[in-house]
């Protein structure tokens, strides 16, 4: 967070930081608009659009019928004609009913048109579990979105990141998937951990994609993670420090592009790599990060651990969900196995 230069007297929740960036872009550019389910009168069920309808009206903050394929398709079309739509998937889990629009249109139309159109849109999506919403409302699906070429994928971990990444996402001429974790938003009924509420400059600023952030420096092990688990990893690092283990925590901030340089640089220093993800273990972020480091610096790796959701649907039951979603103890145990 070294980019912060001005003196800031206020802190924002992640949801307010997101909304501040969107509102600023909407004031500056009439082509920016937002559409999704319950984003106008309700303000987004996770507060992602709180207050926007009051300022910008129904023409620019639109509630849509429950057809993701229709409104995400409409957003792709509007983007191709020069507007800058933001379309929200209320839960990322619902991507399946719009998979052709996302995977084959949004992600590929620039390529398929030979560069004759671009798709400058943002697809926002609420992700993550930890609040007993069962298998169809608790996934992160980071790997699913980062897998296909043509979309940039960003995941904020704090209010500071949320604002800077959102400004960059709206200004980007390519489609950006902006995945915000429900547990980080700062909602009354879904309390956030300490950490995501941060000082946020009132002026606009951007965080470039592909720039991972070292949230805590350490010498013994590199913990690479994103989203909610940045905070769990930081807590684990704090506990590990009491036992004499110095953990470096790298917040990816974007999956596409992936900042392999920062990860490799850290692993070359520590020799040990632990990747922590709230997505499923197989064919996902943990495997990709480990493989990327192995490609670049196999000799630097003394040991590797993956901490992720085992390959099961996320349970509704509280104790079962707590068991499968990586927690602070899981991260500490993985780090200790590398030492």
């Amino acid at each position: 967070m070294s980019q912060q230069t001005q003196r800031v007297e206020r802190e924002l929740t992640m949801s307010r930081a997101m909304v501040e960036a969107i509102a600023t872009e909407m004031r500056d550019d009439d082509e920016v608009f937002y559409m999704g389910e319950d984003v106008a009168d309700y303000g987004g069920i996770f507060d992602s659009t709180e207050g926007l309808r009051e300022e910008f009206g129904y023409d620019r903050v639109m509630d849509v019928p429950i057809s993701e394929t229709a409104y995400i398709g409409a957003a792709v079309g509007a983007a191709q004609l020069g507007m800058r739509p933001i379309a929200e998937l209320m839960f990322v889990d619902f991507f399946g009913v719009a998979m052709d629009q996302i995977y084959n249109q949004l992600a590929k139309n620039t390529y398929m048109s030979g560069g004759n159109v671009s798709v400058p849109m943002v697809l926002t999506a609420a992700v993550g579990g930890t609040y007993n919403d069962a298998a169809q409302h608790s996934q992160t699906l980071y790997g699913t979105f980062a897998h296909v070429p043509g979309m940039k994928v960003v995941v904020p971990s704090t209010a500071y990141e949320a604002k800077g990444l959102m400004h960059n996402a709206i200004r980007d001429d390519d489609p950006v998937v902006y995945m915000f974790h429900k547990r980080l938003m700062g909602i009354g009924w879904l309390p956030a951990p300490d950490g995501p509420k941060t000082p946020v400059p009132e002026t606009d600023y951007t965080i470039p994609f592909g720039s991972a952030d070292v949230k805590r420096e350490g010498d013994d092990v590199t913990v690479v993670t994103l989203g909610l688990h940045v905070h769990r990893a930081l807590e684990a690092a704090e506990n590990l420090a009491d036992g004499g283990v110095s953990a470096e925590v790298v917040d990816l901030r974007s999956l596409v592009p992936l900042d392999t340089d920062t990860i490799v640089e850290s692993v070359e220093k520590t020799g040990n790599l632990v990747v922590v993800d709230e997505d499923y273990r197989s064919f996902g972020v943990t495997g990709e990060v480990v493989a990327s480091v192995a490609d670049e610096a196999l000799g630097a790796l003394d040991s590797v651990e993956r901490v992720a959701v085992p390959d099961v649907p996320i349970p509704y039951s509280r104790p079962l969900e707590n068991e499968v979603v990586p927690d602070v103890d899981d991260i500490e145990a993985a780090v200790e196995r590398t030492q």
Partner: protein
Amino acid sequence: MSGDDDRVAVTLAEWPDDADSDEGVVVNWFVREGATVEASQSLCEVQIEKVSVDVLAPVDGTLVEVVRGEDDEFERGDTLAWMEEE
């Protein structure tokens, strides 16, 4: 509580009309003790039943003491914090 004249109580100015309850909970503080704030700046967010409401600074000045922290409950009219007017 020395009863300093220049200390101004921060309270929720308008209780939501449709709320049956006289109790709320503090959800988020947006400024820390010692921060300089402007009148009408949002200081904290409270929740009454399921409605979120912002509590605004009554004057320009400094937030000197938070009385009800995050997750604390309060009743209608309670002082949530103290400010010193500029």
